[in-house]
């Protein structure tokens, strides 16, 4: 495995999947994607039912999983050509994740959770420090997501509502300006009112940071808020052919 980064194939694309094929060990082929490109700064809504392989796709995008064949290029870097440690570093430096629930480490406070990515990425740490104190930046993000730092910063995670926890997760995903935000059903645990508010706050901050958003959910109702919306079945050949 080459230790160098693969030459940038397309500097403009945030994500570029080509002839991607993935199956779990010993299982049937789960993903067969001919081509999928996301431009930088684009906000993409990806709809898929549970079990359709959307979580697996996110794992591939994050460099946690490797495809059997095909190309996964994120921000110009071909992830399959990177070693495990390099992929971990890449993920830490460039990608922020928000999951459906239980995003936060229960033994850290709200502020400590938000600051967590800075422990793992020097690049994001410097991005923050260039602007000022790390804690100040964390508080700014919390405020942007409608959480008052003075009241919440030191609280244990368990003292927050689900909606508040999701917003903390979003702040954590965005600290240090990662280029790509990947969200896996982040609003599914929220009620209707909270859902809308969350998305507005999230998009405001993403726009300000210039981040690309890949948002996976089963709720079609959210699609209009995005630049582009598609179903997983549109790009995944195995679903189209019904071979899952």
């Amino acid at each position, binding site marked *: 495995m080459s230790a160098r980064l693969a030459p940038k194939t397309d500097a403009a694309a945030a994500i570029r999947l080509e002839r991607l094929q993935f199956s779990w060990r010993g299982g049937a082929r789960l993903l067969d994607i001919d081509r999928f490109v996301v431009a930088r700064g684009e906000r993409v809504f990806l709809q898929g039912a549970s079990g359709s392989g959307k*979580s697996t796709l*996110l*794992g591939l995008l*994050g460099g*946690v*999983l490797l495809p059997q064949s095909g190309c996964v290029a994120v921000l110009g870097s071909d992830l399959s050509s990177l070693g*495990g*440690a390099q992929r*971990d*570093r*890449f*993920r*830490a*430096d460039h*990608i922020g*994740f928000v*999951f*459906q629930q*239980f*995003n*936060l*480490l*229960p*033994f*850290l406070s709200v502020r*400590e959770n938000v600051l*967590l*990515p800075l*422990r*793992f*990425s020097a690049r994001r740490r410097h991005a923050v420090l260039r602007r000022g104190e790390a804690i100040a930046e964390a508080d700014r993000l919390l405020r942007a997501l409608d959480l008052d730092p003075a009241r919440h910063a030191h609280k244990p995670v368990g003292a927050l509502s689900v909606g508040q926890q999701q917003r903390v997760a979003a702040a954590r995903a965005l600290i240090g300006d990662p280029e790509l935000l990947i969200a*896996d059903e982040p609003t599914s645990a929220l009620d209707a009112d909270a859902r809308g508010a969350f998305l507005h706050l999230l998009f405001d901050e993403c726009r300000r940071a210039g981040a690309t958003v890949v948002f996976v959910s089963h709720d079609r109702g959210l699609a209009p808020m995005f630049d582009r919306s598609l179903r997983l079945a549109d790009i995944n050949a195995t679903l189209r052919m019904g071979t899952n």
Partner: protein
Amino acid sequence: MRVLPLALKSLRNRLGTALLTALTIALSVALVLGVQRIRSEARESFASTVSGTDLIVGARSSPVGLLLYAVFHLGDATNNVSWQSYQDIAASPDVAWAVPISLGDSHRGFRVMGTTADFFAHYRYGARHPLEFSAGKPFDDVYDAVLGAEVAHKLGYALGSEIVLTHGTGRIGSEHKDKPFRVVGILARTGTPVDATVAVGLAGIEAIHVDWQSGAQIPGHTVSADDARRMDLTPKTITAFLLGLKSRIATFGVQRAINDYDAEPLTAILPGVALQQLWGLVGIAENALLLVSGLVVLVGLAGMVTALTTTLGERRREMAILRALGAPPRLVFGLLVLEAGLLTVAGAAGGVLLMYAALAFAQGFVMDAFGLALPLSPPSMLEAALLAAVLLAGLLAGTIPALLAYRRALSDGLSLRI
């Protein structure tokens, strides 16, 4: 060091389990350290009990038995030594000094030793330290007594106090009430069985038994204290005697001559040799004890491994989050090993504290019961090595749940499987 704050906070989040685990380890560490300490203190204390005495002589018995009752006042003699034999041997040209000892009475649980004033001149301990008086002087009159430091301290006696001796070495028995003794001297603390001894003159022992037949005082045939004083109080038998020779080289020859003494069956021992024989006997039990206490530590660590492993299931989400943030799998491994290490360190530290607490608590009792001093000295090299070994074992034990978590982290990916 990224992982240390995470490990600390993680343990604090599960404080109850963490404290219980650390406590288990602490108890086992206290046990192994305590056993080791008592063992080495006992050896040191025993080995420095008597010094400068070339031979100890008593009725024919095992060398270890003679050492135990003559010096440590543990156990009883099987037979006595006749006064003639003692005088005969003491008069030998090779002998520089001889101190007779007579045992068999007690005072409120402390042994009474009949001897001569020479005892205070010739008995040495440790690096040839002589006995010192913290108050008063050696006995002079028939009914004078000199107390060891512990006796005076525990029973609250001072110069001039009156004490009554009890027949036999048990805690209760017939008392020699009509012949009380007066305290004329108190010895400074020595850390030897002398501290728990009441010393009186040989004449005093004779005096209190002068009207006793077969272990009982017959009413109507008693002799008053003053009358007894005027009688001839030369003893007929003694229990043992200490010998100092003019030349050390003659030790073996004199020992052999005493062992071959025709008139009476006697045993002469070199205190150093008898002590080594004692350790030889005790050694097997000591090794067994150390082995068991080592196993107890392993059990404590096994408990820690169990505690850490059972929490792995509920911490799967934590690991997935860390992976999503870009933590390498080895960080997951390191986190768990570090948690195990921190628990072991806390347990070891707690164990040391527990041991010292127990030591401080039991010091007085052990001194009274066994004449053994347990000072609160800092950990020895061996004890430090034992602690290091426990720490290493804890870290190694931590690799078991750490490996499990490592492999799961690799296979789980970002899946939400809880």
